[in-house]
């Protein structure tokens, strides 16, 4: 796709179609076997920007990196950003992504004013909370299945500096994490890094990070492009409990004091992994699986997360940088949005065939028992019954799926058990 007017094509392909943005989802929501992918990265034009309100209208293939490159020198920042800036606006809508400020401002979709949805029958729908609200709701978190998003309008937030005022606090155990989260409820950005390898008295140790945009005006220079590229696929044995344990111990102890404060540029604060292109090669040729669940407060959040962590630690499969975060109570705008009030845990696993797959199944079952759910954007393994239990509204959503659209994920989770 190079122009929004290219869709729908004059002759529709016989097989299903799926719009794809940067292809950064970890699982198969952006894949489709035996079908046609509508690659949207060339739809990267900006349509309008109003510096008085911070409202930007752009085509859906523009990446968050491109928006930041444009907006930061003009004194604006994304209202919500995930852990990588190399995703497209269309992808951010389709997965209703969240960031470190979820507890205060909710998901990306909440900062969306309107967008245009193109259907394969040629219908163009302008969607906003007031106009075609049911399509607005279905498309946010709709995994690209409701049609092609051609452009979107988002409200950016003002900043006066690239710097983030940062505070890191070491903790051991989920009690302490929960206490820190409560105390930091008014901090703009909060997230915790967790060591999933440490056992015994170090079980569930980590670093709780909070930050806010600095209010001291500083020159808003553009970012330098990332130039480090991870050069090779590491062999599978490189990632083992010993090397990961060593990395985690070093990371945990890099910060000597219980608490550390300072200023840090927004790039390393929000996008630590983006500075090394193709970091995923560290997992070797077989690659990685992501796991992300949310456990709601009312179902004994802590016992649920503890059981999941115990299963992970016991498996010996964990890798570095598990991420723990409290989701706030701002309602997610999408019919299939993932976030809900509770605690979310995300981490990578190297793929070790049956071992990893069995663990994933166990984790999904624990999540279900505690009233939680998994994040489709990161999933490659949940079964159809699991998905349908996590997202009972899926049948309602199915009415909005474009009859010519599908995805590998959608085929996988809607098949009858």
């Amino acid at each position, binding site marked *: 796709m*190079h*122009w929004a*007017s290219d869709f729908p094509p004059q002759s529709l392909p016989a097989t299903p179609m799926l719009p794809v943005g940067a292809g950064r989802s970890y699982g198969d929501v952006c894949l489709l076997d035996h079908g046609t992918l509508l690659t949207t990265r*060339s739809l990267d*034009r900006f*349509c309008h920007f109003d510096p008085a309100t911070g409202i930007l209208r752009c*085509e859906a293939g523009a990446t968050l990196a491109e928006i930041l490159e444009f907006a930061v020198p003009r004194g604006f920042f994304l209202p919500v950003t995930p852990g990588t800036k190399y995703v497209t606006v269309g992808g951010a809508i389709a997965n209703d992504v969240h960031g470190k400020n979820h507890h205060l401002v909710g998901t990306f979709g909440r900062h969306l004013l309107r967008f245009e949805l193109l259907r394969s029958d040629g219908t163009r729908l302008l969607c906003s909370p007031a106009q075609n609200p049911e399509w607005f709701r279905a498309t946010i978190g709709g995994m690209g299945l409701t049609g092609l998003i051609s452009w979107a309008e988002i409200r950016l937030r003002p900043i006066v500096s690239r710097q983030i005022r940062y505070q890191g606090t070491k903790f051991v155990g989920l009690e302490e994490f929960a206490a820190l989260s409560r105390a930091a409820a008014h901090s703009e950005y909060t997230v915790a890094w967790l060591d999933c390898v440490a056992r015994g008295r170090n079980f569930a140790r980590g670093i709780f990070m909070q930050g806010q945009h600095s209010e001291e005006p500083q020159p808003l220079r553009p970012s330098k492009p990332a130039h480090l590229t991870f050069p090779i696929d590491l062999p599978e044995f490189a990632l083992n409990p010993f090397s990961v344990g060593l990395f985690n111990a070093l990371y945990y102890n890099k910060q000597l004091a219980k608490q550390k404060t300072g200023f840090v540029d927004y790039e390393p604060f929000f996008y630590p992994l983006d500075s090394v292109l193709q970091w995923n090669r560290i997992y070797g040729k077989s690659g990685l699986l992501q796991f992300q669940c949310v456990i709601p407060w009312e179902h004994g959040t802590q016992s649920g997360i503890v059981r999941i962590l115990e299963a992970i630690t016991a498996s010996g499969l964990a890798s570095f940088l598990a991420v723990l975060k409290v989701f706030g109570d701002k309602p997610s705008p999408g019919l299939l949005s993932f976030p809900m009030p509770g605690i979310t845990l995300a981490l990578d696993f190297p793929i070790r065939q049956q071992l990893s797959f069995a663990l994933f199944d166990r984790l999904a079952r624990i999540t279900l028992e505690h009233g939680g759910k998994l994040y489709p954007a990161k999933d490659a393994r949940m079964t159809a019954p699991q998905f349908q239990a996590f997202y009972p509204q899926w049948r309602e959503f199915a009415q909005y799926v474009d009859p010519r659209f599908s995805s590998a994920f959608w085929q996988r989770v809607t098949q009858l058990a």
Partner: protein
Amino acid sequence: MGATSAIAIATCRRLAARNANFYLVARSEPKLQAVAADLLTRGASAVTLNVMDLDDPAQHPPMLASAAAALGQIDLALIAHGVLGDQQQAQSDYSSAEAILRTNLLSPISLCTWLGNYFAAQRSGVLAVISSVAGDRGRQSNYVYGTSKGALNIFLDGLRNRVDRLGVQVLTIRPGFVATPMTAHLRRNALFADPDTIARGILQAIRRRKDVVYLPPVWAAIMFVIRGIPQAIFKKLNM
């Protein structure tokens, strides 16, 4: 000219960040509007649009005169329109070969004639024209397209020889494979560059007052080798 081509868009975006004033020419009005909005959002000080088919040379002088009037003065002209054409069809049917030559060769020659004289009278200006590495040697896979670009290269050499001494820079841009709508049907390989890489190279070549630039630069070496292959061997190759 050819303002909705991927290389032109990428080049204009970089110039928009420096608040340039644009006069854009292309065939499709909705596409041109989208490009204009993009450039204005990114910092262009003004954008004037002209929807026209550049295949008709009779329309060139009035269009260029209106561009000069809209801009006050033309500092840089970028000629970026072109078609790849269908070699199979062009080798069996002369009229489709002629269509390729009309768009890729005759149309730029007409534009360059007017612009060359305009810049010469002004005693300054940059005339940047997108040619192709395909113009360096005829190959069976696309020699009609190659002819249009090769002949264009010779025309630009001659024009440069005439107007360089009058303060005019004539830049022949010879890109290799670029990931654009024109090459969307080809299988991507490691030699494909993205349009912004080409745009960066174009603006750098203008700054350095280059005459001919291969983009990315690795194509200078590749084409040096290809040009050096003796005919006795070359004619037996499948290229």
